[in-house]
Every structure is written in C-alpha cells, then in structure tokens.
C-alpha cells in the first residue's frame, strides 16, 4: 500500500534530520522523504500535523513469556503492547521455559512472532545450555536459526572459566555476548538495594558492589579475549563510571538501562510496594542520578523497557515473595521523554537512545529513515498526556509503579514494513 | 441559671453519709469528678476510711460506637472489696450507664456486702433502673445542657454549665 505521511515533524537522529517533511512509502519501503515522486498516488494519507515521525523504536529487552510462561502473558498480548508502544523491533532474552538453547525453539518463536505481523523479534540465544552456566550452546547453529547475540539473561554464571570460554567461543564467530553484571554470591537472596531502605524495611539487600565486581570481571576477561560485550541493565554509579573508563580505553563494550531505573530509587518501595520489586533493584538516588547523567553523555548507549509482564497474583504477595519485574513496552517512550525533559535533553538525542543507538548495539541497519529502507516508523504526540491504567495498557502485565500516573507521549501510529500495525 | 455551690453540697452530702458509715465502709470515687468529690468528702469526714478510685472506661457500653476514651486512668482499689459496704461517689447522675459500668467493675474485684450511690447532682434522664441514696441537689436540665464539676488549683469544687450540640 502506498502511504503518504503528511505534515509531521520528522526526526532521524542518524541523519541529523529534525524538520517538517513528508514521507512517501510504497511496497513496505521508504520511497522518498520531502518531495513526492512524480507518479506517487497515495492509497492512504496520514495527517501527522503536530506529531513526531521517527524510526520505529528498538527495544533491547522485552520478555514475551513464550515459550512456557504463558500464564504471565502471551506472545499475542505482548506483541500488541510492543506496537502500541511504538516498538517495531525488540530483543527477547533467552530465559523462557525451556530456555532458548536449541535452534528449533528459536525458529518456532520467530515463526510464531512473524505470523502475528507486528513487531520484529530478535531472540537472544542462551549462552550456556539450560542457562546453567556450565556447557556452551551451539552458538553458530543458534545464530543461523535467528539469534542475534548470546546471553545468560538473569541466570548466574559463577564459573569464570566457563565465562572466559563462552566469550572466546562467541568472539570466534564475531557474536556479541550480553551479560547482566551481578555477582550471584553477593546478590544471594537479595530483593532490594542494600541501603537505607532495605535496612529500615528489613529486606535482604543486594549491595551495589555485586554489580561493579561483576563488571570488573567481565571487563578484565574482555581484555584477555577481545570479545564484544553488551552489559545489560546497569543500576549503579560505579557501574557507569567503570563503563565510561572502559570505553575511554577503547574496549568494545556497550550498555543499557531499563527505563524505570532512570526515574525510580529505593525510596519508591515505600511500604513494600511489590511493583517496585525489580532486578537489578532500584538503587540510591545518587545511583539513579548517575544513570540519568550517563544516559545523557552517551556512556549508556541505549534505554530499554526491560519489559517483564507478571500476572497480578504473582505481585499479590509479600514483597520478597512477589515476582520481580515491570511491564515496560508501553512506558518506554513516555518515560524516556520524561527523562529528556527533566534533564534538558533535546528530543532527537532522546530518540537516538531508542532507535539509532540500540540499532548500533545490535549491528543492524535500522533505526534510521532513508529511501530504500524498510518503513518501520513510530508516529507520536509528544505533548499528549495519558493515564497509565490496566485498561490503557495492552500488555497483560499491569505491574508498574507508574499505575495511575499521567505521562506525556502518546503513540498515534506504528508502521512495520509499510503496514499500519497500530493506530489510536 | 443559678447553679448551687458545690462546696456546700459536698458538706451536706457528708452529713448524710456520716450516719451510714459502719466499720466495713469504704469510699470509691469515679473518674474524674467523682474522685475529686470523694476526696473532698473523705477530708470532711476526717476519719480513717479507705478510699479507692475507678475508671470505668473498660466497662462502658458505648465502646463499639465511640472507642476507647482518650485518657484512661488506672483504677486503684487498695483494699479487698469482698464483704465491704461501698459508698460509690460520682459528680453527676444522668442516664445511669456509668454507674452500671462501675458496679460491674467493682464485682470483678470481689463481692461487696452493699453499695450505696452518692451523687452531687441528679439531673434526671435515667435510662436504667438506678437511683442515688445520697443526693446533693436535683436539677432539671435540657438534653443539650451539660453540667460538669471542676476543681481549681486550690482544690475548690465548682459546677459549670455548657450548651452542647447534640
């Protein structure tokens, strides 16, 4: 279908475009930007007056809960939530049930996702079999099946020798290893940041050094091996400082944070709010401010939803027994805009953290608007407020501390490969 | 309305009480006005007679409507109640509910031989079959009027009247 997107504010961070320009789409691709090609007759004109038109968002972590965890959420519900959040490509971690450690599972997931004709799904393969941290997976096979990189998700990898070998093996084929840095001994049984609030509430703590010690181990192994590593979900000031220094030294390391962590701290746990039970935990205000700064100066490459829908019953438990995680796909854009406006960050820079930068982390030619490329677009109103409620969310998970909060930034249209897959 | 002099009433009550006293008699004042009055009468009697105090908060029948009283004072009964002739002293007798509560509480301390009720003011309005044997004054008051006993720093007792919003 030929589509003409008219009158929007076009933002393409990669090409440094921020101007009112029209886009012309045909056969799933961007045909032209600016002037219409001579013989273009649009089947549909989208009026984008007052709206921002940008590349579709790329989310570096969204749990779709399939296979195996459909009681929490289903592929249908979460893929719908993705496009409702303006996300056109997403990376899903391998900690499904069973974990994504066999090519057949990956192919099945991609097939199921593709048939839904919504966002594009890029699975991470398990780094070790069953995520047990002992034996390597068939990474080359998994890559052929569609895995974009390899990860332990939140499963511990305590044996440094296995980690070293996994990084060596992955780098043999040029694969990036995604690791969430956490020393599993220091984090054992912990459910909150080991600080003032956990001490007051009597919750078992995860010290900040559980993250920095793990980062130190990873960075030292990187120097040994020369592998590319993406650090997932930083949460501490020390962690940000270490990555900044590693990048200065030229190590091939990238990192992201979950969007809730750009706003919340241990204080938000309040009276045991289980919606604030997340891993890594919300840390001190000092840590949170360092994340906001690191995101601004580019130390932190990308911001992701860290989407983890949890069924209501799993949150209706005493804090430590509740399931960790937040729903995030539909909050990714508004919470990023909130960070940007609070930090005085220009809109194109904020959008880059959701498009250009995650594409670079993934090594994909995406997150950019140019003739000839797939027409994956997000069209949103940056000034429109909406209230986060279970009704408003398409995700099956209602688990976010932002419930009943009004946020600015409403997605109006999402296009994947030239098809309008969501409009409101 | 001209209120009677509480000090004079107390003296008159003391004269009424004196002939009723036996060797097993004790005085028990009900918080807060009744305690002041009992102390006054005790002093006027001028003889060795045990004196106790009761706070009936835990025995009130309006707990489920109005909860626990903001200021609960401990009851202090420094003698064995069993076999005693108790003179129960209160400032104002109205519905009779406080006296009911006080008698219930006294029976949880033991089995008295008898109880005599002595009040400064009987203002009518009884809701229970309770009557005073010793009365300082009988006053006709409207339901929205609230009569109260006060004690100044010198220990002088005086009555005061307040309009209440019902």
């Amino acid at each position: 279908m030929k589509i003409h997107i008219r009158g929007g504010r076009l933002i393409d961070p990669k090409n440094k475009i921020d101007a009112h320009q029209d886009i012309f789409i045909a056969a799933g691709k961007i045909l032209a930007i600016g002037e219409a090609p001579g013989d273009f007759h649009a089947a549909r004109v989208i009026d984008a007056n007052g709206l921002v038109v940008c590349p579709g968002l790329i989310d570096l972590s969204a749990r779709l809960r399939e296979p195996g965890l459909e009681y929490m959420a289903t592929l249908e519900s979460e893929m719908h939530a993705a496009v409702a959040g303006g996300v056109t490509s997403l990376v899903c971690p391998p900690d499904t049930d069973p974990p994504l450690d066999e090519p057949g599972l990956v192919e099945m997931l991609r097939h199921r996702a593709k048939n839904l004709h919504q966002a594009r799904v890029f699975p991470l393969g398990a780094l070790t079999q069953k995520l047990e941290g002992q034996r390597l997976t068939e990474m080359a096979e998994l890559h052929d099946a569609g895995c974009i990189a390899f990860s332990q998700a939140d499963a511990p990898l305590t044996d440094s020798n296995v980690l070293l070998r996994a990084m060596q093996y992955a780098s043999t084929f040029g694969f990036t290893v995604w690791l969430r840095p956490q020393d599993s001994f220091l984090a054992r049984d912990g459910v909150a940041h080991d600080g003032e609030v956990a001490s007051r509430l009597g919750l078992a703590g995860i010290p900040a050094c559980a993250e920095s010690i793990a980062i130190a181990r990873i960075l030292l192994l990187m120097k040994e091996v020369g592998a590319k590593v993406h650090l997932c979900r930083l949460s501490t000031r020390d962690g940000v400082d270490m990555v900044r220094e590693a990048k200065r030294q030229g190590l091939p390391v990238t990192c992201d944070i979950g969007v809730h962590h750009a706003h919340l701290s241990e204080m938000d746990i309040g009276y045991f709010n289980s919606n604030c039970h997340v891993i890594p935990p919300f840390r001190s205000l000092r840590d949170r401010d360092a994340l906001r700064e690191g995101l601004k100066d580019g130390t932190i490459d990308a911001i992701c939803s860290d989407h983890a829908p949890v069924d209501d019953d799993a949150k209706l438990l005493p804090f430590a027994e509740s399931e960790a995680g937040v729903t995030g796909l539909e909050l990714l854009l508004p919470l990023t805009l909130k960070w940007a406006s609070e930090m005085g960050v220009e809109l194109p820079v904020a959008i880059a953290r959701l498009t250009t930068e995650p594409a670079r982390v993934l090594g994909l030619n995406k997150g950019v608007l140019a003739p000839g490329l797939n027409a994956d677009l997000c069209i949103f109103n940056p000034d429109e407020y909406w209230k986060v409620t279970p009704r408003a969310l398409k995700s099956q998970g209602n688990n976010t501390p932002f419930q009943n909060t009004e946020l600015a930034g409403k997605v109006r249209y999402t296009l994947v490969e030239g098809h309008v897959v969501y409009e409101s | 309305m001209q209120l009677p002099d509480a000090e004079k009433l107390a003296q008159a009550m003391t004269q009424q009480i004196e002939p009723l006293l036996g060797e097993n008699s004790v005085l028990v004042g009900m918080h807060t006005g009744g305690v002041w009055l009992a102390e006054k009468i005790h002093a006027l009697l001028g003889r060795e007679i045990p004196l106790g105090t009761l706070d009936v908060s835990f025995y009130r029948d309006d707990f489920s409507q109005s909860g626990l009283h903001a200021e609960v004072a401990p009851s202090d009964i420094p003698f064995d109640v069993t076999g005693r002739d108790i003179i129960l002293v209160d400032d104002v007798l109205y519905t009779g509910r406080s006296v009911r509560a006080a008698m219930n509480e006294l029976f949880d301390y033991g089995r008295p031989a008898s109880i005599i009720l002595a009040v400064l003011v009987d203002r009518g309005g009884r809701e229970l079959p309770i009557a005073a044997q010793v009365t300082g004054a009988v006053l006709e008051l409207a339901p929205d009027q609230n009569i109260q006993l006060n004690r100044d720093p010198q220990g002088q007792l005086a009555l005061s009247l307040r309009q209440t919003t019902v």
Partner: protein
Amino acid sequence: MAFLSRNPQLNQHGELQHLLTIEGLNAGMLRHILDTAESFVSVSEREVKKIPLLRGKSIFNLFFEPSTRTRTTFEIAAKRLSADVINLNINASSQSKGETVLDTVDNLAAMQADMFIVRHAQSGAAHFIAGHVSPHIHVVNAGDGRHAHPTQGLLDMYTIRHFKQEFHNLRVAIVGDVLHSRVARSQIHALTTLGVPEVRVIAPKTLLPAQVERLGVQVYHDMAQGLKDVDVVIMLRLQNERMRGALLPSAQEYFKSYGLTQDKLALAKPDAIVMHPGPMNRGVEIDSDVADGTQSVILPQVTFGIAVRMAVMSILAGSKQ
C-alpha cells in the same frame, strides 16, 4: 520520582487502624498506648483478670511462622479483654501448595473475624495483609521477617518507662544481631521517637545492616566502649543458624566478644537495667548470672507485654470505621 502513599496504619480520622510498625507513629500515639497499658496492668492484679471490652469480637492468631511464646501472650491479652481467640498455625509447606496468604486471609475474613494477629517470615507480610482486608478488620503485626515487631518494641518502652520514668535523659545500648532483628528495628524507632537522645548499637560488622546509622543510632563494635555509662542494656537473641558460617565463626567467640557478663555490665551505670526479648540463649548472648541478676528486668517485660497487647487491641478495636 516519589509515589506518595498514605500511612497504611491510620484511618481517615488519623486514628490507629492497624499496628504494623512503630515507624511513622508520633510520640503522642506511643505515649497513649503506654498510658492505656498502665490501666491494664492493674486489671491483671485483680481477682477477676478480665474485662468485657472486646466481648463478642473474634481475634485470629494467624501464625505463618511458629512462636508459642508470642502467640500465648496475645492469646492471654485477648482473653482478658473477653474476646474469642482462634489460633491458627499455618505451616509453610501446606501454604506453598497453591493457597496464598490472601486466600487464607479471605477465608478467615468470611468467618467474621474482627482482628488478625499476624506473624510471618517475610518482611512486609503484615502491611500486605492490612492492605487487602476489608476495612472493619484490624491487623496487628506480631513480627514480620526482619522488619518489625511493634508490640515487643512497645512493651520494651513500657518497661523502660516503668524503671526509668523518663526517656529524654537516657542512654540505651542494643547489643547483638541487629541485621536480622525485627525487635531491634522496632526498638530503635520507638526510642528515637520517644526522645531518647542516645541510642547505641553494639555488634560485629557482620551483624549490622547497611547504613544502620541512618536509623538514628550510634555504632559501636566494642562492648567496653559501647556499654560505658548506659542506663539500659537490651540484648538481642542470636539465632542458632547464624553462629557458624560467614557471619560468625562460633558461639564461643561471640560470647567472648559480645556476651553480657557481670564484668561488662559493670561498665554501664550502676542502676542500669538489662532487657532481653526472649527466648534467651544463656551462655551465648547473656550469662546466667546477669539474666537472673538484680539488674535484670526480663520477667517484668513478659508481664508488661500482656498489658501492652491489651492496650493495642483495645485502641485498634475502638478506632472508627
């Protein structure tokens, strides 16, 4: 970002609806509970140790974690108030078979419960239950994980006031496993709220929570320094499972460094009192000579505990709906 939430212990009139933690209650509220308890102490000395205040009310002792002592004191307190008491020990293994805490609570609420006394191994369990019961039900936290044990904290304050009259001129030392102790947290909040100018904690670093000084206490690692000139010494129980492993090498070494003996107690003020929430590990955190000595007020603590729990139940049951 700050999500404001109402203090879940208070109703819309600012009265105590639940007692979940000492934290967030003001000095006036704490004093009111202690004053009320004083009246109940005299009730316990009468021939009939029972008053009709809570006649017809059903109080459920909901113990997800076993504790005969605490359950018994709540049971006695409730019975002295003429309430009907139902004891339920819900063992953790049958709980994990699908029935959640809320299922249990909903079931009991349907049996016309008026009050739940809750003991649970997880911090925040009492808050969680209070947040989900219907508004006419009151919840008393009888100990949740490491978080709070407010009636124990209150009875300790009652004991201190009984023996020391005032709070504003005291130096109080809390000794032992503060990290895992809900009792210590409740005591610290109560002492600081009631105006004790100097609250000390004395423990090895492995038994102190992160940033404990933020709770308003001074930290000591040495008994000789920490006990110097204190008016009140509160000993904490050391659980068996903490005694060997990464927190402490042995009970013997712990006793040597942190056990309370007559020699160490001599460093405190001559009229200092010694308290312990019980049950004691004699020869681990406290020497028998001290536990049974003239400065020990451990048995009065138990007696006062019943009066304090009666006061808490009466005040909650009397709050408006």
